[in-house]
């Protein structure tokens, strides 16, 4: 698949949050403020790209030759957890400014299902290394894109008066539904 199509498809048409239902927890949890959404998005782009490349290499050079593909889930989640810790330690030493911006979001990323999801998806879709990398980058951009739009809407909603029972999560979910409906308008531009 040409890379440009792949990027458009992942960001707009098959957006990982709004149509694939991955990463809903952070999508609802950290989308109250525009700045936190940006921070979380940055962290996800960084970790997802790195972890997809590493897990891809582990799959090709370790799990497949030794015929232990059934260990996939357990090894991937350990790699992701270790990677997040390492990134945190390194970031603290190398770039304290960036650590200040992303630091609080890093521990949350381990249990962000988009990371493990994309790492497994690239194997199931039988991509090569280059395709996997592009797939990871474009999906993490798609995640960030959805998160940022969503936080923008939610910031404005705070000024409105809404029924007590709808406050918070219920309204956020209905909004996500409308946003997802809007994104469906993009379907067809890739095919």
């Amino acid at each position, binding site marked *: 698949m040409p890379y440009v199509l792949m990027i458009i498809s992942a960001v707009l048409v098959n957006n990982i949050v709004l149509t694939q239902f991955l990463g809903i927890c952070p999508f609802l949890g950290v989308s109250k403020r525009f700045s936190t959404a940006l921070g979380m998005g940055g962290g996800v782009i960084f970790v997802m790209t790195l972890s997809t490349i590493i897990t891809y290499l582990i799959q090709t050079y370790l799990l497949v030759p030794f015929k232990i593909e059934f*260990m996939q889930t*357990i090894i991937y989640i350990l790699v992701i957890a270790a990677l997040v810790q390492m990134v945190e330690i390194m970031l603290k030493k190398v770039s304290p400014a960036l650590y200040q911006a992303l630091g609080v979001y890093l521990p949350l990323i381990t249990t962000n299902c988009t990371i493990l999801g994309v790492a497994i998806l690239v194997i199931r879709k039988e991509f090569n290394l280059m395709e996997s990398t592009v797939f990871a980058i474009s999906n993490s951009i798609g995640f960030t894109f959805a998160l940022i739009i969503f936080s923008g809407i939610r910031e404005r909603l705070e000024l409105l008066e809404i029924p007590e029972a709808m406050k918070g999560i219920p309204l956020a979910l209905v909004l996500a539904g409308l946003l997802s409906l809007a994104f469906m308008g993009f379907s067809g531009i890739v*095919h």
Partner: protein
Amino acid sequence: MSKKPSTFFNMVGTLFIISFFSSAALGFVYEMTKGPIAKATLEKKIKAIQEVVPAFDNHPLDEVYSVDIDEGTLFFYPAKKNNKLVGTAVETLTTKGFSGIIKLMVGLLPDGTINNIVVVETHETPGLGDKIKKEKSDFSKQFTGKNPSLFTLKVKKDGGSVDAITAATISSRAFCDAVIKGYQAYKKEVRK
């Protein structure tokens, strides 16, 4: 809370022991389920073949041959009765589906007429694109008994004779695409 202090030795040791035991347990379960998984996969394939071609008495899985095309590999399972070819089940695929790959088992009679089609693998949207499955709508039944040399395997929007599923033109197109690929590869093989 834990009674064990978090010394380096304790931490590494515990992690190692837990990982060791879970790997051993997984290896054991893997060995146990390997047989059933392989058997279930095989049975699914045989069932799909039985559904698409007329009754046969050979083992089509043992006589399989394959053809490589751009998007992947097509498999041909010849079904024979009393050593006479009664049909060929073609496992064909397309990557043009709305959500990626679609695999079909297309049953072709020796003259190329479509006998029956079942969907082997699909990730199409439930309620929309997954109507290509026989149990979800009559879409795939319109191919039965048609010979692709007389019947244009394209949706009506593209000038063909296939009624597309409402609101799922992409999936319908992809379905036709997979059938055409299977048919063309079959014709090429037969001519050899």
